[in-house]
Each structure stands twice: as structure tokens, then as C-alpha cells.
């Protein structure tokens, strides 16, 4: 059974007539990295909040790790689902880095000796141990998001949701966070659901789900999704630069591989193409 199972989910915000999510069905398997892309207002973040009960679905069924999302289960589900939010400052609760990492553990009444080791381990995993006693005001955006991730992995959830977690970061901070997620996945085989409009982030996922006006339009591997360049552009989404280059080269008559290539992959392809000519 899928780790996250969403069946026919509908949701509308109370002050809006148009539903934010319409008949969304999505399965995420354990260990998978799924990226949900879509333009602003497509319902991406609403979907994330429906998974851990921050918002209550109007109809449909959400099941996380076998637990149906109900009033009684909501805290148990939140224990399994960690969310990294968009704004690095507005989710930093603790007065120092280690206090913030401990916050979730304090909420779950983890005994202090265990809390100390878990905070230490989590900070080591995100490479922020040297900053343990620093105040948030003295950290960069990327570092704050790493702390937020540490706060979540300290709770040992089964799923980590990145709700546009890199959108407010500079390119260096974005790369920092993405590399970290890739490392963590290599180590722990964690399930990641990233909600993003950053194509590079989506390109590192196993599967990309395209959301438009609250409906799932398409779902597939990054390669499958990004080869439909024009459709993505029509939906107001960016297409990764290598894909745009490939499309242009194809129009110019060059044969291009069908699967998705990142910048480095494309460079490799291009220079080997040249040397075989």
C-alpha cells in the first residue's frame, strides 16, 4: 500500500467559490521523491496542508501510513509528516538553533537525554553542529532552512514535505538545501514530497505531478514531463534550460535524446556528439 494515499480529494477555502482542489487522487510510495509543480494558485500548497490535517478536506479520503486522516488521528499523522515551509524566518520557533530543533521533540514529550542526542544527530546530519547555539538572526536563509530540516528529521518522520522550501532562497541557498535533501535520501531512503516551481528541484525527483487549477493534469518522470515543453509554458511554468536548448536544437535538425538531461548531462551529450561526428 502506498505511504500517502489520496483519493478523490476536494477542498475549497471558505471565502472562495472556486474549489482549490478538485478530485485529486495521488499515491506516493515509501522511499519515493515526488515533486508537485504548478503555477501560483494551482493548489500545490493546499494539497500539502491537506495531507497532515492543517486543512480539512471537504470530501475524499487521505490516508498516511495506513492511518486515515481524521480528527483523532491528526496528531499521529503529523508525527509521520514533517513540513518545511516557505519562509525561513516564520517557522523558526526556538531562540537558538538547538532550541528550534528541539521544539518538535518537546511537543512530543521526548525525554531530555534522548532529546539531546537526537538534536545533536539531526544537526550533524544537516551539517549545522557548529551553529548549535547561534541565534536565527545570525544565519543565512539556506542555513535556516537546514535547521528547519533538522527540526523535522529529529522527529524521525516517514515523509518530509518541502512546501516551496527553496523559493525564498538565493541560488546558493537553494543548491545547499537540494544537495542536503539528496544526501538525506541516500542515507535514510526518506519519502520526499516537494511542492515547488523550481524546475531544478522538480528535475531531481523520481516523479513529477503537474497541478493546474486544483486538478492533476499530468504525472510522470521528470523526463516525460519536461519534454512537453510547450504545454508547460502554456501552464505558466518554466522549462529547464537544457530542455529548451534541446527543443531548439531539435528544430534546427539535430537528433536529441528523449529523456531528461540536466545541464551537465546535456553538455556531456553535446561534446560526445561532436566528437563522434
Amino acid at each position, binding site marked *: 500500500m502506498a505511504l500517502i494515499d489520496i483519493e478523490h480529494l476536494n477542498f475549497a477555502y471558505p471565502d472562495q467559490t472556486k474549489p482549490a482542489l478538485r478530485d485529486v487522487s495521488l499515491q506516493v510510495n515509501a522511499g519515493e521523491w515526488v515533486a508537485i509543480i504548478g503555477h501560483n494558485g494551482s493548489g500545490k500548497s493546499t494539497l500539502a496542508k491537506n495531507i497532515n490535517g492543517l486543512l480539512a478536506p471537504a470530501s475524499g479520503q487521505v490516508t498516511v501510513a495506513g492511518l486515515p486522516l481524521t480528527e483523532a488521528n491528526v496528531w499521529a499523522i503529523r508525527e509521520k*509528516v514533517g513540513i518545511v515551509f516557505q*519562509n525561513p524566518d*516564520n517557522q*523558526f520557533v526556538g*531562540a537558538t538553533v538547538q532550541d528550534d530543533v528541539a*521544539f518538535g521533540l518537546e511537543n512530543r514529550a521526548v525525554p531530555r537525554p534522548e*532529546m539531546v542526542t537526537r538534536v545533536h544527530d539531526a544537526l550533524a546530519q544537516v551539517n549545522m553542529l557548529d551553529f548549535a547555539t547561534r541565534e*536565527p*538572526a545570525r544565519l543565512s536563509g539556506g542555513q535556516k532552512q537546514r535547521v528547519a530540516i533538522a527540526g523535522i528529521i529529529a522527529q524521525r518522520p516517514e515523509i518530509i514535505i518541502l512546501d516551496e522550501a527553496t523559493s525564498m532562497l538565493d541560488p546558493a541557498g537553494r543548491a545547499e538545501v537540494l544537495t542536503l535533501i539528496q544526501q538525506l535520501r541516500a542515507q535514510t531512503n526518506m519519502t520526499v514530497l516537494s511542492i515547488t516551481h523550481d524546475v531544478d528541484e522538480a528535475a531531481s525527483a523520481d516523479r513529477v505531478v503537474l497541478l493546474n487549477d486544483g486538478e492533476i493534469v499530468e504525472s510522470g518522470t521528470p523526463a516525460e514531463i519536461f519534454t512537453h515543453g510547450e504545454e508547460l509554458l502554456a501552464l505558466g511554468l518554466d522549462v529547464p534550460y537544457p530542455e529548451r536548448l534541446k527543443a531548439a536544437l531539435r528544430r534546427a535538425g539535430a537528433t536529441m535524446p528523449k529523456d531528461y538531461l540536466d545541464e551537465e548531462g546535456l553538455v556531456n551529450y553535446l561534446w560526445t556528439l561532436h566528437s563522434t561526428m
Partner: protein
Amino acid sequence: MTKLLLGRYLPGDSWVHRLDPRTKLMASFYYIGIIFLANNWQSYLLMFVATMVMVALSKIKLGFFLRGVRPMIWLILFTVALQIFFTKGGTVYWSWGWLAITQYGLTNGAFIFMRFVLIIFVSTLLTLTTQPLSLADAVESLLKPLRRIGVPVTELALVLQIALRFVPTLMDQTTKIMNAQRARGVDFGSGNLFQQMKAVVPLLIPLFVDSFGIAEDLATAMDARGYQGGDGRTKFRILQYHQPDIVAGLAMVLLTVGLVFLRA
């Protein structure tokens, strides 16, 4: 502005810095209480020496303490003047109508001055050697018994902690908004009082709106991380009394005994 609120704390590793914040808080209040026992030169001298020993133990320059007195100086001088002019008794040195400078007036004025300065020194010592966060922890720990009568102590402590944590964030936000409004032609810090007050409005309103946005985001993040109110939480930061705290407590007892012995 950041300095005004948080810059009072001077990081250090002195004997006073290492004391438990609860000890420092209780000792400061206790000290302010017993200073009212002093009523003659000998007892004030004892309090003065005791305060100087504490200051020396903190390894903080005397200048920082004197700076603490400065904002209060007019209040102090006013109170001292009242004492000097209105206390009657002893030799009269000068008089004019119902005003008179008497022997008792002068000694009383000197005592009041001393009391003020010593109280300011001790409270300055507390804030210079204790982080605001530790003070918040101390307040929480000391007020814990009030939970039994329904005071939400842990919640209040968390509110205080979050407020302290967001001071620099809101400062940044203020600077950002000020710059944005300057770019739109708002002139901060010039003109008469009324114009300056008017210039603050386009600063305060966006800041106010922002604060609500931050609060909402923060509440969502806390919810997502399993915050369900103050009950049943464990604590990461713990306070523990050590031997120096016992020493400090005993010192306060000895000081009280000395005062009772010396006072008239």
C-alpha cells in the same frame, strides 16, 4: 535599537555569569528588599562594599554600571532634593520660608541617593550577566507554582521566548519597510514633532500587517510540528543549581545578618 533591548547582555564567563539565572533573579529581588533595612552609615557602607564585590566578581567595567544610572539621574536628583528640603530635624544650615536644609535632610538625601545607585547597580548586574532568554526561563521556573491556580505559566513563557526571538526579525523588517517608504518619498526623522509622528504611520501599518502574517505562519509551523499547548511537553533547556548558587544564597543570608547587626 537592537542594542537598546538586547545589547544589555555582555557575554562573559565570570562567576556571576555562571550563576543560575533563578539565583540571580531571586538574589536581586532579595537585595532590593533588604537594602531598605539599611538606615545608617555603617549599614550603607556594608551594602556598598557587598555591591562592589559583586561588580568585581562579574569582571565588567564600572563604566557600564554608571551608564545604567544615567537615564535615572533626574529622577534620583529630584527625589534627593525632596528629601533634603523637606526633612526636618537636627542642625539647620539654611532656611528660606518653609524650605530648610537640615542635618537630617542631608543625611537622608545621601542615603536615598546611595539606595538608588545601589539598586540600579544590582539590577544592571542582573541584565548585564544574564541572557534575556535565561531570564525568561528563570521567570517560568520560579512562577511554576502558579500553574496550580490556573496561571498558564508555560504558555506565557513560550510567548515571551518567541517575542525575544522575533525582536531582531522585526527590526530587520522595520529597516526594510523604512527603506521602501523612503524610496517612496517618506521623510523620517525631520520636521516638527507632529510631522515626525505622521511619518511613522506608513511605517507602523505595514509592520503591523506583517506581524500578523508572521504570527499566522508561525502558528501553522508550530501546529505542523505537533504543538498542542503547554501541558505534557518536555523541556530541552534545563536549569540546574550548582555549588556557586548555594554560595550566593549563603552570602545573601550573611549580608542580612550583617545588616541587622549594623543598623541603628
